[in-house]
């Protein structure tokens, strides 16, 4: 559960200035976990953007702290996506009459609760009986009526079963990561060209079809933003992102 990961994580120190929250990032995480801030209200993308800015500001890259940050953000995203999924299930039920949907949910909960209670009863039985010792000794050959047939199983089955366990696992294929590293630079170059030519464009207009490539484009946008080269705007939630050139080189802080 992400909550555990968050509990053991080292603090990630940086200040946030969001609509719903103003203060250290770690405090925000704590408040979300305590349900004092609704995760719905928190724009995770905004947190990422601020962190990238912080990195640009500090001018140094702390791998440990950044890894922690990625873990925490991943935990937040997981929590949020779970809520989205729940919403989806409920939406599915929303096609029904709300009362009927409630009855359906009730049915499922009631059924599940039975097995949860059975699990408790099984735990008690386990405590009482699982440690009991039974004899497990093979019958002496002299007492077997039909001695086990010699060579009943093929010996070749043995190395076949063992070999996969002993073989070194293949080296993980990291080519896709290498691709990413290269294409982020390429993508930045491409976006800078478009920005220079047109002064303004939308994310939808420049993003490639491929999901991974789109993610790279998005990172490149954040990079442009954090470097003070572009301003990002979004008119509505989940709407298209408008990217505009910053006319003069600006201080990073002024771009925020």
């Amino acid at each position: 559960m992400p909550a555990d990961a968050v509990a053991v994580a080292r603090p990630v120190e940086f200040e946030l200035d969001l609509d719903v929250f103003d203060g250290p990032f770690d405090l925000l995480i704590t408040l979300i976990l305590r349900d004092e801030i609704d995760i719905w209200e928190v724009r995770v993308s905004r947190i990422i953007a601020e962190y990238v800015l912080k990195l640009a500001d500090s001018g140094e890259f702390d791998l440990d702290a950044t890894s922690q940050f990625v873990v925490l953000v991943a935990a937040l995203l997981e929590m949020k996506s779970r809520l989205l999924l729940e919403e989806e299930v409920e939406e599915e039920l929303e096609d029904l009459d709300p009362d009927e949907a409630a009855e359906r949910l009730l049915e499922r909960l009631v059924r599940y609760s039975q097995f949860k209670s059975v699990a408790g009863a099984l735990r008690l039985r386990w405590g009482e009986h699982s440690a009991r010792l039974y004899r497990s000794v093979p019958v002496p050959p002299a007492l077997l009526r039909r001695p086990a047939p010699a060579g009943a199983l093929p010996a070749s089955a043995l190395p076949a079963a063992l070999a996969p366990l002993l073989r070194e696992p293949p080296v993980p294929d990291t080519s896709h990561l290498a691709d990413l590293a290269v294409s982020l630079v390429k993508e930045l170059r491409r976006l800078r060209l478009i920005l220079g030519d047109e002064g303004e464009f939308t994310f939808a207009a420049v993003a490639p079809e491929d999901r991974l490539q789109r993610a790279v484009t998005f990172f490149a946008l954040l990079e442009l933003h954090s470097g003070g080269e572009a301003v990002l705007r979004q008119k509505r939630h989940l709407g298209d992102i408008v990217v505009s050139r910053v006319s003069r080189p600006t201080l990073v802080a002024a771009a925020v």
Partner: protein
Amino acid sequence: MHALARRLEALLFISSRPLPPDEMAAACGCSTAAVDEALADLRVDYTAERHGVTLRDVAGGVTFAVADDCAEDVRRLTGAERPDDLTPALLETLAVVAYLQPVTRAEAAEVRGVSSEWALGSLEERGLVEQQGRADTPGAPILYCTGTRFLKLFGLRSLEELPPLEEFSLQAAEVDAIRARLHANAERRRA
């Protein structure tokens, strides 16, 4: 001791699985009624106070087991450890398999509301659930059921000894409380 009881004692001693009375009757060439009678004699002789082993009815048959107060000595000798405790997730999955068997992974997941792939694999590795062929449905998913070891470790004669599922139902008042909460939510959403 009764002559037949002696012979049953030998069978029970040698067999590493619980023996159903009819199998013992076949081996001894006598009636199941005679076996039952001789077993009653044996049960009287093998009470925990008198012997280090006792007779137990488990997993569809009769078997000897070490008397509970002698188990620690045996563990010191053999180094056998108690089986690791089952986590709540494993117990819950096992409950689903025990009552609904044979079940597919998807059916177990549907009841529990979460993926049960890891739990089923772990239960299988512990010998508590077994694969029992494949369902005759698209994708031919694997069917899981419980086996002898499940009955032994939970001290059950057979699956029939599991209490009926209905006994674990929520109280009417609890159901009503949940219903009220769900309908209130529905109301809010409608508004």
